[in-house]
């Protein structure tokens, strides 16, 4: 057939890959993360276990991903459910024991998100093997604690609760300053003020007027991390450390 070209141009590469590159997170956390989500195959470390770690799971879980929480027997499932975690799609392994790297690797086979609090000293070979497992799969490991190879590190720098006075009131909401840094595209330090949680139990970006003591870090202190100070602004106790 003379009209048929011998060489057809290649089909344009579909811009949408079958596996999205990042797992979604709650809208308030998007700006803290380099790709607006949890990059698949990566490790995201949160300095300590708290609502922030649970909030990282909530977005993807609400979108239908399975998540597992390992090594955190005290994880407040109700708070996580309030953030959007789907309890039906959550596995809990409160005590993964000494075989925790194997447990986490197994969990990553089935769950896209695993929140882990590793033992105090996670040996480097175990960590590296898990990272290799992660890269092969498409899951995300959220670590509550220290993880030297983490791509993104999140930390609550400052937090202050509202609503509780001296013998009266009740806990209502917590305004927290969260910083994110890490390696590669996450190297730039990002800082956001979040309601963690807001009064309705959700996570929201704090508006500038809500931020109670934005002037504190600028107070001329040489090293904010080495100084602990307490200030009360409008009934809100704010601590930096």
């Amino acid at each position, binding site marked *: 057939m003379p009209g048929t070209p011998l060489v057809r141009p290649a089909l344009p590469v579909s811009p949408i890959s079958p596996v999205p590159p990042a797992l979604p997170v709650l809208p308030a956390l998007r700006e803290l993360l380099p790709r607006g989500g949890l990059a698949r195959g990566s490790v995201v470390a949160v*300095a*300590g*276990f*708290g*609502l*922030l770690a*649970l909030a990282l799971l909530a977005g993807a879980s609400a979108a239908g991903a*399975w998540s597992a929480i390992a090594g955190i*027997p*005290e*994880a*407040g*499932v*109700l*708070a*996580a*459910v*309030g953030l959007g975690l789907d*309890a*039906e*799609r*959550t*596995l*809990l*392994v*409160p*005590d*993964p*024991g*000494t*075989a925790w790297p*194997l*447990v986490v690797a*197994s969990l990553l086979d*089935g*769950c896209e998100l695993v929140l882990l609090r590793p033992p105090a000293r996670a040996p480097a*070979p*175990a960590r590296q093997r898990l990272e290799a497992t992660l890269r092969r799969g498409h899951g995300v490991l959220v670590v*509550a604690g220290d993880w030297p190879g983490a791509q993104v590190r*999140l930390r*609550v720098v*400052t*937090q202050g*609760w509202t*609503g*509780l*006075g*001296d*013998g009266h*009131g*009740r*806990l*209502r909401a*917590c305004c927290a300053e969260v910083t994110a840094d890490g390696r590669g595209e996450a190297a730039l330090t990002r800082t956001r003020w979040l309601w963690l949680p807001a*009064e309705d*139990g959700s996570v929201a970006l704090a508006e500038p007027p809500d931020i109670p003591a934005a002037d504190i870090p600028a107070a001329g202190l040489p090293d904010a991390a080495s100084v602990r100070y*307490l200030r009360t602004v409008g009934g809100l*106790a704010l*601590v930096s*450390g």
Partner: protein
Amino acid sequence: MSAHPAAALAPAALEAGVQRVMVVCCPDLGASEPDPAAVQRSEPAVAGRSEPAAAQRFEQVIAAVTGFCPRVEAVEPGVCAFGARGPARYFGGETVLARKIIAALADLGEQARIGAADGLFAALLAARGAERILVIPPGETAEFLARQPVSVLAGQVPDGQELAGLLRRLGLPTLGDLAALPAGDVAGRFGVAGEAAGRLARGLGAPPLAVRPPAEDLSVTREFDPPETLAEPVVFAAKALAERLHGGLAARGLTCVRVQVEATWADGRESRRLWRHDGLLSAAGVADRVRWQLDGWRAVPPGTEPPGPGPAGQERGDGGVAVLRLAPDHLVRATGHQLALWGEAVVTDAVARAAMRVQALLGHQAVLRPVVDGGRNVCDQVTLVPFGEKTEPRLDPGAPWPGRVMGPAPAVVYPFAREADVTDDSGAAVTVSGRCVASAAPAWLAVEGEPPLRVTGWAGPWPLSERWWDPAAARRRARFQLLTGDGRAWLAAVQDGRWLIEAGHGLG
């Protein structure tokens, strides 16, 4: 007549493992009537007409029949069955055996009818016939079944009575007519009940038995001599074992809810684990579980130092697997109804495999699923259910629970409340009076194992008196919310004069 399709199928049915079954039917003791017309019950009889005496007499009947054959299975009140081949050979024929049993039961004052045929269903029908003893010779069961009216299906298959009526109206008055239809068409037109009925009519399916004693010898065992040190041959043997197990269960129309895998090592240690089965696992699926169990055992041998996360050691000191045993646990009738394996459809295969792998490593109770629950205390509001079991809230989470502590749910809920000391400025412990008044403002919080923290805000006490009507479960507590200098918030309670930290909002 011999060209009847059902008759032609009979040898195949025999080869498929249909056994000679003898049924002893005591019409006085159960709902089973000799008159076939009265068999048209929609419900299988239960509990011997609520007459405890009948149940006791039936126990005696079973005990007497057990004298002739040790493995007797109670089919329904007043009816028991056993495999006839062995006993018949021993006693000199089925008719002789039947006469002996009738004589033995007559000594107990029971009138019994006995039927023997290929398969339980035909034997049951034979026992319900007009004769005291009806033995259908081997190979003639299909003809016998073909003559039976479809009404005998009532109580044997789901909705049997309606199905029988439908079949009659469609011009299929006998089981032979039903057996003549292609099995696939019957299943397509009449569903599960039709398929079961078709199998019965062909002499293939037997109504399931409740085995007495349960599960005793349905387990299958394989011994390894010398003990097998590698996992692969054990897993391979496990697959064959599982096929035998499934075959044994299927021959009795049973399925098991769980299967227990027991491995005994050459040094005498044992590893036992129950796996969810629900009749849905293939032999390969069971073999997978055996593999995971062995892996788990190898990764962390109890009582020894774990070899670390490295690949399972090839040479270990345990000497290898000596015995592998699969035992069915919790036998149920194989109804053919396939519910979603995990109670809900959300669990994908990958998740189930991952969870079961971890269960193999750590045990059934180690992988949990949370269920949001009702309750007034934070620790009550989530129930943890082992993976694979049914997840249902105990209490209604949607109901109002006055007395719940207000405020956002805590991110940290301690599974066991932590002890704490709360002191005032002078260093004296803060107490709560019977009228729920705090002795002083809390100034310091020392949670066990942590240095004291300055209390920067507090509220309470909020009383909670639960289950005062039940002395064993009653508890009174006064709850506080505390804020400490490091920015953390705590949910504390005073109970019996002790401070307990139930939950908190952690850092991060």
